[in-house]
C-alpha cells in the first residue's frame, strides 16, 4: 500500500508526498525536497533541525518523544506539546494520511 504524508509549511502551503514504510518522516521530507526541514545531523537525533508539529489526530499513533528526543527538543524553537523531531518518527502503514506542520525556523 502507499503511505501518504502531508507537510504543511509555516505559510500554510500543503505538500502531500508518498512515504516508504520503514523510513522516517524526516527522510521522506528530504527525499521530496520539502522545505523547512534542515536535518543537520542526518537523523542521529543529535540536533533539533527537523522539528515538526504532529497533527493532533495522529498524536496517539506517533506517540510522544523519547527522553533523548525531549533533550534535543530543548534546542528547538517554539516547541509545543505536539512537537516531535521528524527523524524519530518511523513511517508505518497506520500513519497513512499523517499531517505534520513545520515551524517557521529550525533552531
Amino acid at each position, binding site marked *: 500500500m502507499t503511505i501518504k504524508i502531508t507537510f504543511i509549511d509555516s505559510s500554510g502551503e500543503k505538500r502531500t508526498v508518498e512515504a516508504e514504510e520503514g523510513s522516517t518522516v524526516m527522510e521522506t521530507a528530504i527525499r521530496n525536497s520539502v522545505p523547512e526541514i534542515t536535518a*543537520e*545531523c542526518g537523523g*542521529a537525533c*543529535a*540536533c*533539533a533541525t527537523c522539528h515538526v508539529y504532529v497533527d493532533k489526530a495522529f498524536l496517539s499513533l506517533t506517540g510522544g518523544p523519547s527522553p533523548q528526543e*525531549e*533533550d534535543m*527538543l*530543548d*534546542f528547538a*524553537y*517554539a*516547541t509545543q*506539546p505536539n512537537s516531535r523531531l521528524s527523524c524519530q518518527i518511523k513511517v508505518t502503514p497506520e500513519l497513512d494520511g499523517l499531517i505534520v506542520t513545520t515551524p517557521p*525556523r529550525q*533552531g
Partner: protein
Amino acid sequence: MEESIKTDVVIVGAGPTALFTVFELGLLDIKSHLIDVLPRAGGQCAELYPEKPIYDIPGHPMITGDGLVEKLLAQIEPFHPTFHFEQMVTELEVLGSAQTPAFRVKTETGRTFECKAVIVAAGGGSFQPKKPPIDGIEAYEQKSVFYAVRKMEEFRDRNVVIVGGGDSALDWTLNLQPIAKRLTLVHRRDEFRAAPHSVNAMRELVSAGKMDLRIGQIIGLSGDNGELASAQVKSAKGEVSELAVERLIPFFGLTMKLGPIAQWGLNLNENLIPVDTAQFETNVPGIFAIGDINHYPGKLKLILCGFHEGSLAAQKIYHYVYPEKKLVFQYTTSSTNLQKKLGVA
C-alpha cells in the same frame, strides 16, 4: 608573547579523519599538531553522537562514536601528537612557494605555528554556539546577550537570565547565582538533562528563594542601544509574561559553521573545499582538505573515506617535508622500520 611552534604539519580539526591521518603521517616520520575548537578529540563523533553505534567502520561490526575515538587515540599514541583544544584557527598565511610550501597558522588565542603543510580536516566547520531564533537578538549580542561566559564580572549585580536545561546552563546558574543581583533560569520543561546533583542544587536555591526558575520559552526581547531591559516569556499554557533582564545567556547547543576557513584563499564550492583525488590537495599547494569538508566527484561523507583521503595526502606531504628523500612504500605487517616506529619491533 609565546614563541611560534615549529612543526611539519598543522591539522585543523581533531575528528576521526584527522586522528587517523596522524598515524599515516607518523609512519612517514612527519610530526603534526592538531587544533580543535572543542575541548577534546573526536569532532562530531564526540560532540554529536558519542553513544550512537556506527556500523560502517571496516573491521568493527559496531562501535560507538566515543569507542572509535578512544581506539584511534590509542592507535596514534606512538606518534605523540600534540593537541591544542578550545581554540579556532583564525589565520592561515602562505609563507613559502608552490615548490617548497610553508605556512603560518594562528589561533584565536594567539598561538602561532610554522609548518610545511596544512591539513584542513574541519568536518562541517567549527562548532559554535547555536543562537536561539529570537527576533532582534543580534542587536544585544556582546553587550547584553552572551553565548559563553568569559568574564564573570560582567554578570555581577545584574539581573541575569540563563536559558537551557543542560550542563552548561545548570553549571553557570550555580556559578553566577552568588554574584548576580537576581538569577532566573528559563527552561521549556520542568525536566533537566543536566547532571542530577546540579539540578538538585538549583532546586534547593529556588526553594530557599535565592533564585527563580521559570518554565517557558523566551519569545521576544526589549531594550535600548543593545542594553536589554526585559524578555517576554511564554509559558506552556501560552501565557506571556515579562521578565526583567540585563544579561541573557542562552545555551542552545552547538552548530557547525565554516568560519574563518572561508578567508584563507581556498576555492570553495558551497562551503566545501574542492580537492584532487590523487593527493587531496586544494588549489593552494601544501594545503590539503580531507574528510567531510572536502569535495570531489563521487565524494561520500563517510569516516572510512576520510581515512583513505588522509593516507594519500600524507604521501604527498612527505615530499614537502623531505624534498631530498625518495619515499619507499612499506607495509606495517612486514616492515621492521615501521614496526619500530610503532614500538612493536
